[in-house]
């Protein structure tokens, strides 16, 4: 346990102190969000005790793995969802209903397909009661600013993804929000388009061409966060919470290749990997006493590939190096390293990943013996799969409906996450040949029931 605490303290040491001298625009205090919690549905916590502040002049990036409640958190800030506990303060006042000072750029663009570019951008202005002429003028100005000149009359479906997101930006900026929220605004775009749009946005923001006082951006790309933000807030999952807050003191424009930039990225990786460590440590209690881990949704082919690569590099490798080399999103890579760690095939420490003895046996084996190692690893560490096996062993015909396991998992995860957890568990369990699954009927069963063997 002391080791666990130490890891946590190390993370805290990397965090920064909040600046009290600049007025806060938005603040959350002890914000929690859960679903269920009635007599018949168990409570599933999505966010727990989030304290957060965004101040005038700040660009804050929200970073975290999938399922850490980032989007839910942003929806609460925008007033689209009410938190289960805690409060949102807007200029020190408790927020009720939709936040009047926030506008949002969506990952999916969320344009109204039947409205022209101009109508989409003018929508918010018209809703605010501006007359037609003024609204059209202002919308046109926003369209010009974002570089969509000449496309005023086009319908969204005539535009490419990048152009659509420009409309999304123009629409959000036209209403001159105090805080601009962006939910992974660039992740639906190809790399070049995203780079281009990002630097244009940064230009508008840094040159103060827009009256926006603060920006909050959700992202899963560490590089993007360090590129844009003054402050990076790192979320962790199960339940979603703030793991660390990091200050980025680099001047703009930022150079990806600079040592300071790389150092920051390393720091963030270290924090994320340590979080994974903390989780693994917590799960090293006897199997029966453990709570359900949140299984990383790693595809096994990719996991094998990763382990092979690490072996080629001598059994240890820096995770950030791997990201650059494999050209993978940090998110996806972390899912893989976490899977390796959960299964005990590798250990994570100080931003490195190192194969364990079990891991070495895995990479040295052929297809069949790899399966044996994997089966050993799964049976020794994955709580869900063990419970599934136990249930199947005691069931009369050694088969059970997936709904049963879904119900159990829903006590610990949201409905969607429970479904994904079961999918991953089934995927792993099938590969390990621990049990079989019939997709059509949704039944899990043992292929070689114990009696037939004995």
């Amino acid at each position: 346990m002391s080791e666990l605490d130490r890891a946590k303290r190390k993370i805290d040491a990397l965090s920064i102190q909040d600046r009290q001298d600049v007025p806060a625009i938005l603040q959350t205090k002890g914000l929690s969000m859960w679903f269920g919690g009635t007599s018949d549905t168990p409570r599933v916590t999505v966010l727990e005790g989030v304290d957060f502040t965004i101040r005038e002049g700040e660009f804050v990036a929200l970073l975290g793995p999938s399922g850490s409640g980032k989007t839910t958190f942003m929806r609460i800030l925008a007033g689209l969802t009410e938190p289960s506990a805690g409060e949102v303060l807007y200029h020190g006042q408790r927020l009720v209903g939709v936040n009047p000072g926030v506008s949002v750029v969506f990952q999916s663009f969320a344009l109204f397909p039947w409205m022209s570019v101009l109508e989409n951008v003018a929508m918010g202005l018209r809703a605010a009661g501006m007359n037609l002429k003024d609204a059209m003028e202002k919308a046109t100005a926003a369209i010009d600013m974002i570089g969509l000149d000449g496309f005023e009359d086009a319908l969204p479906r005539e535009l490419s993804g990048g152009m659509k997101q420009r409309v999304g930006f123009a629409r959000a900026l036209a209403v001159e929000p105090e805080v601009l929220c962006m939910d992974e605004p660039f992740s639906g775009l190809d790399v070049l388009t995203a780079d281009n749009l990002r630097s244009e946005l940064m230009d508008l923001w840094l040159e103060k061409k827009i009256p926006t006082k603060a920006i909050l951006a959700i992202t899963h790309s560490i590089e993007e966060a360090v590129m844009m933000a003054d402050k990076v807030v790192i979320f962790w999952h199960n339940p979603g919470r703030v793991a660390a807050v990091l200050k980025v003191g680099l001047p703009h424009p930022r150079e990806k290749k600079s040592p300071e930039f790389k150092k920051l990225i390393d720091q963030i990786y270290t924090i994320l990997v340590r979080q994974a460590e903390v989780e693994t440590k917590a799960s090293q209690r006897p199997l029966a006493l453990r709570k359900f881990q949140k299984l990383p949704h790693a595809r096994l082919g990719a996991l094998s590939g990763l382990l092979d690569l690490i072996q080629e590099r001598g059994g240890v490798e820096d995770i950030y190096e791997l990201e650059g080399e494999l050209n993978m999103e940090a998110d996806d890579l972390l899912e893989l390293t976490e899977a390796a760690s959960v299964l005990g095939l590798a250990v994570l420490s100080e931003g490195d990943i190192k194969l364990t003895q079990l891991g070495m046996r895995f990479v040295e084996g052929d297809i069949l013996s790899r399966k044996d190692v994997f089966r050993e690893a799964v049976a020794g560490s994955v709580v869900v799969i063990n419970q599934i096996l136990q249930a199947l062993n005691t069931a009369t015909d050694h088969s059970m409906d997936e709904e049963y396991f879904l119900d159990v998992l829903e006590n610990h995860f949201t409905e969607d996450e429970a479904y994904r957890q079961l999918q991953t568990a089934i995927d792993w369990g099938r590969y390990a040949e621990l049990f079989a699954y019939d997709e059509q009927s949704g039944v899990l069963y043992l292929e070689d029931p114990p009696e037939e063997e004995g």
Partner: protein
Amino acid sequence: MPRIINYERPLFRGHAPFSVYDVPIALAVFALIWAFLTVGRDMTAPVLPDSGELDLAFIRLPYYALRSVARMFLAYFFSLLFTFVFGSLAAHNRTAEKVIIPTIDILQSVPILGFLAVTVNGFMSLFPGSMLGIELASIFAIFTSQVWNIVYSFFQSVRAIPRDLTDSAAVFKLTPIQRFFRLEVPFSMIGLVWNSMVSFGGGWFFLAASEAITVLGKDIRLPGLGSYLATAVEKGDFPAIGAAIAVMLLIVVLLDLAFFRPLLAWAQKFRTGDVFETEYESAVLTAIQRSTLVETFVEKVSRPFWSFLIDRLPARLAASRIGSLAGRRRRGLSITGIILLVLGGGMVFFMVGDGVVFLFQSMTLGELGVIGLSGLATMARVLATVGVASLVWVPIGTYIGMRPGLARRIRPVIQIGAAFPANLVYPLVFLLFVRAGVDLGIGAVVLMFIATQWYILFNVIVGTLTVPEDLKAAADVMRLRGFMRFRTLVLPIVFPFWVTGALTAAGGAWNASIVAEVASFGDHSMKAFGLGAYIAQATVQGDWPGIVVSIVVMCLLVVLMNRFLWRRLYRYAEEHFTLEG
């Protein structure tokens, strides 16, 4: 590739002072205004002693057709109104949803024709001495046949709006009225148009059945095509019968060309996503969009009007409403909801209780037995109808569906066939039965088949069209032919579509039984043993307990069949045949 040229925006905006398209459009507008005034005047006319008489002169046909079409559109207007009010209510308020959706589900499967006696009587007493009461009863009958699937489609569309879109509506502080006109109606537009087409098709059947009826001993004839035909049949006037059928066919085709096709083509701008679908083109729509007259009207009158209605008016009242948005999300029943439910439930309980007592006092056990047996007889006919229609149309439908070119060419024919009210040809078919000595007990199946076969054919074709090309190629490579090919390739994919078609056809057949199990032509008349005939007869005689009990029994049978047959088949289809991997 999506089109770059956008026909919603005229290409030559502001250039031409007027265009060639303006002439027919101006004429059409004048004709519409004239039609409005005429129909409005005649609909409210007092009931005269000769109101039941219809002039069979051909020259009167256009006028009768106009009256019938006006009824259809009025009913359609009320359907839309009802949809927007109750569909929205159900989509936004959980208490309302719990009441409205199950109600729609039941009303959807209820044989509406059976209620004619009740509604006609009600509306006549509302407007004594005026044709308006009878007129409204007919419109109400059409309305009840059109409205349910439109409401349901709207409700489902509103519920299916992606969260990102409702979020952005909230972030940009759209007022409830703006959200309705700018998001909810546009999002549901395509579903509304398709369902309107289906509803209109079904509506003609009820129009023809409700214009000329005998209720509670009173002969009622509204001026219209349905009455014209009924009178012609009574007098055995073959040229008039032929003319009525021809005019009906003409109307169905014209409406398709001048109303639904342009509507469908226009609605394409509301489709979501980038999926390329079939282009729906309509010359009429192009004409309307290119007309300077229409453009001027849109820019000078319609757009400012709507803009004021949607944006300006509510924006003045809006400030106070934004804050309350969050409160409305709360789940469960509100206190007002509970009070309303209790009050409503109490009223229904006492009314039903009263009715049951009344019925038991006036119904003998023997009579109840007759009704039950009649129900079973009609149910057998309904099943036979679906069976025969499937045997006939599944092979033909799959043959057509396998050939997309042929399917495209044949589609308008099927659409018109489905929209044409089959009960208009019933008298002629009945005459054939009389000549050939066919008993109506069996003949009724043929009549019901004529009315409902289209649903099965249409759905089977649509289903077959979805068979993926690569599976077809795989079947070719493996040399699957004939029945093997049908069983392994076509059947699994078409089955769910067939279930939908069969369910709709069965619903239609129950309704049709009310006009198919009793028939007359001139002096000939015949009656089959069945619940449809029982209802028809009870309606004519004004036998209230008989009407109520027989309708209740029919509703029960329909609901039972839905539960125990169609829903099971659906589930079977879902579990066994889905294309998703």
